[in-house]
């Protein structure tokens, strides 16, 4: 019963989107928007093709590297800034300022610095993801309840024990929210990086399809990326909610 209730919303949404897609197709015609079913068939066929795989793995690899850099770097910077008060106060407005810059304008600079290819995409993806992770981690570390630390000291915990039994459980929910947001932004950054000046990857296929006005391929790739994004996000969101509920209890 609860499964039905939790699944009802997403199912209803999927259905609405599919119907809207079909209606738009009827209205706009095949040149603008192919119908849902042929598009999904085309996607299936594309995945089966041998020349599709290198593109998929290129994008996946770029995204994974960017994600590792953004997560590890962001948590590292955040712990450093959260642990040392003055450093955090100095750096926070700078980070917030960088976060609210339209980073897309910096892409040509990244291309000049890293050259065409994999490293530019990774750098651009990581650039998008690292700042929110750092900001969330910093706030999490800064807001650790002092009583917990004092209790730890009263029980004569070693630094390692304090870290494992006190700091990690206290900061994890907040940090995970940062990681989740960092995930989405890194994906956005990597995809944007692939759209311009790239020779391989899903973004490249998308640009080629746009140039050829191959609507079916455009939509098929869009659907593929969207499915991945929504699925990964739902999983992360579910973990996030569970962690927060555990922390509140």
């Amino acid at each position: 019963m609860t499964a039905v209730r939790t699944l009802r919303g997403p199912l209803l949404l999927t259905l609405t989107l599919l119907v809207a897609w079909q209606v738009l197709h009827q209205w706009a015609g095949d040149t603008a928007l192919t119908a849902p079913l042929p598009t999904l068939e085309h996607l299936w066929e594309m995945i089966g093709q041998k020349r599709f795989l290198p593109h998929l793995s290129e994008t996946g690899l770029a995204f994974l590297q960017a994600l590792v850099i953004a997560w590890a770097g962001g948590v590292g910077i955040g712990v450093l800034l959260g642990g040392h008060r003055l450093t955090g106060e100095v750096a926070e407005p700078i980070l917030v300022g960088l976060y609210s810059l339209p980073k897309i304008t910096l892409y040509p600079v990244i291309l000049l610095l890293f050259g065409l290819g994999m490293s530019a995409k990774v750098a651009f993806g990581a650039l998008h993801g690292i700042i929110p992770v750092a900001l969330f981690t910093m706030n999490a570390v800064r807001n650790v309840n002092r009583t917990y630390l004092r209790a730890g000291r009263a029980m004569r915990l070693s630094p390692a024990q304090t870290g494992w039994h006190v700091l990690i459980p206290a900061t994890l929910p907040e940090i995970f929210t940062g990681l989740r947001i960092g995930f989405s932004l890194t994906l956005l950054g990597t995809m944007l990086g692939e759209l311009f000046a790239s020779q391989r990857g899903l973004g490249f296929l998308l640009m080629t399809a746009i140039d050829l006005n191959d609507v079916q391929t455009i939509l098929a790739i869009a659907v593929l990326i969207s499915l991945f994004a929504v699925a990964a996000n739902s999983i992360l969101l579910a973990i996030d909610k569970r962690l927060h509920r555990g922390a509140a209890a």
Partner: protein
Amino acid sequence: MSKAGWIRLVVLAAFFGAVEALCRTGVISPKLVIAPTAMVEAMVKLLGSGELNPDIRQTLSSVGIAMGLSVTGGFALGCVLYWLPPLRRTVDPFLAAYYSLPHFAFYPLLIVIFGLGALPLIVLATLFAMVAMIMATLSGLDRIPRVLIKTARMQRLSLPAEIWHIRLPAAAPHLFSGLKLAVTYSFIGVIAGEFILSTSGLGHQIAYAYDNFDNRTMYGLILLVLCIATAFNLLVFAYERRLARQRGQ
């Protein structure tokens, strides 16, 4: 100014000073990055020559329209979702995954529907920025303290009075962060669209300068865009500060 503020100033000055020195001595090749003072000089020259005025006007008006639409529309939709919890539960997973969707894949569709020119870019940027405002509105309305609403009941405020005097001011901090995100996302939407699929506008001019190895123009333009976005953010920030001070925080 606080101690942290002074240190921040010194750190930033040292950073730009170091970049300047490295560029002027040729350690960093001008093919990669030009000196910060040269960027400012290029920007001033570009503004003075007036040859890019039509592009600047086009981009800024597109961003402005997209911003206005996404802020008002996002606020209205956020309120609607807040009053209709079942609808909100349904679209929640969609909203959460929204920013990892590849929006630019839908650009060809927008061109077919709205024709070439500024309109599809405005629509793209509006769709891109609106969801940030929706989410900010929702979290703002969610976090109004119960006490305030009870106070409103006790004073027998009418619904409009309650919204104007209690709910909006209480949600204001979240609305402002939504506003700031909407600014950034409008810029990203318009400029990224101009990068790939446009023949005019600042984004196109940056891409054009990049393609022609015209680093002076490119960095001048990038600096210009960043300055405009930062100026707007600072404006919102100053207003936010003033509001907070009025409330004695």
